[in-house]
């Protein structure tokens, strides 16, 4: 129940225009860009399940690209996905799953395109890693996360073109 409440709180935070992070006197916060985040379960099993397209503009050949970085896995299933605006001055949360999610703070545009970001990779109430990252449009960031069941959880973050 408490975890659910926390997640609901996170959900509210991802919509600051409607929620608590908004400053009513200043309207909607400025948006630096849009990111797509997905939590993926990588397993060794061969890919024999029915193919289903995702709802978001996923980067091209994602499965093949994941397989090159995680060669011990042959099957990549999306557990959840989230298309989220990255706000200037306000934190944004990319929450494809209530269990594993990402806090995104914009540090402004990067020279030559993209956004300077401070990311925090969360599992439940715990920060697993903090990172300063320059995210370039269309250039994915794969975060190899914890093991789960017979595979591994991977977080994919892409700045939309």
């Amino acid at each position, binding site marked *: 129940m*408490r975890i659910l409440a*926390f997640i609901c*709180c996170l959900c509210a935070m991802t919509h600051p225009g409607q929620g*608590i*992070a908004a400053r009513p006197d200043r309207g909607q916060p400025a948006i630096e860009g849009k990111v797509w985040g997905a939590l993926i379960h990588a397993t060794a099993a061969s890919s024999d399940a029915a193919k289903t397209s995702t709802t978001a503009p996923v980067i091209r050949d994602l499965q093949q690209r994941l397989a090159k970085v995680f060669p011990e896995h042959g099957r990549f299933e999306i557990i959840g996905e989230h298309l989220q605006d990255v706000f200037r001055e306000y934190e944004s949360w990319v929450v494809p799953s209530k269990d594993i999610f990402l806090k995104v703070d914009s540090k402004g545009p990067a020279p030559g395109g993209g956004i300077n970001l401070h990311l925090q990779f969360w599992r439940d*109430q715990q*920060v697993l890693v903090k990172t300063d990252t320059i995210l370039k449009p269309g250039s994915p960031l794969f975060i190899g996360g914890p093991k789960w069941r017979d595979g591994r959880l991977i977080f994919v973050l892409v700045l939309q073109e």
Partner: protein
Amino acid sequence: MPASPAPEPAEIPDTELVKRSQAGDSRAFDLLVTRYRGRIYAMTYHMIQNETEAWDLAQEAFIKAWRALPGFKMDSAFYTWLYRIAHNGTYDWLRKKKIQGDGEFDDSRTEHKIAAGAETAPYADAAPDEALKNAELGEKIRAAIAQLSADHRQVIIMREIEGMAYDEIAAAIPCSIGTVMSRLFYARKKLQELLKDTYENAK
């Protein structure tokens, strides 16, 4: 006669470190960070009760202080000035998050566990069961504080933890001394109510 040795960092007064920091000496500022990080972190932690966010807020306070140092005229103690910066940032964060007063306290936010014997000096030699009891009471107190509104929480922390006088609290918030007294009164009343069962069971 040999030259007197350089003073230990702990002996260098704040004013000296502030002057050096204002001249751009980031190592002097590092000493100020070391000197006050525990107190600033304690304040941010007590205010928001989340270790990660409190850590970030405390760090942000020092960064803001560094940026504002050129304008610091030393008309108050450095710590008082720093505390206000940290407090304003934390209060602003709380307001944005609206953690306060929105229902059930989520004690899973309380990641930071304090060792039972480390809570306070008088309990340092307490027997294990006594120490456990103290730790439990400490948790309950923190849980109760988390249920206060941001306005009430800040006055309680400023008064009870920092030991600030009413006029100092009023200047830090800022608000009138009458408001400080009212908030303190209602905050304590609310805490009494929240901790009523704890005290009754202890009797």
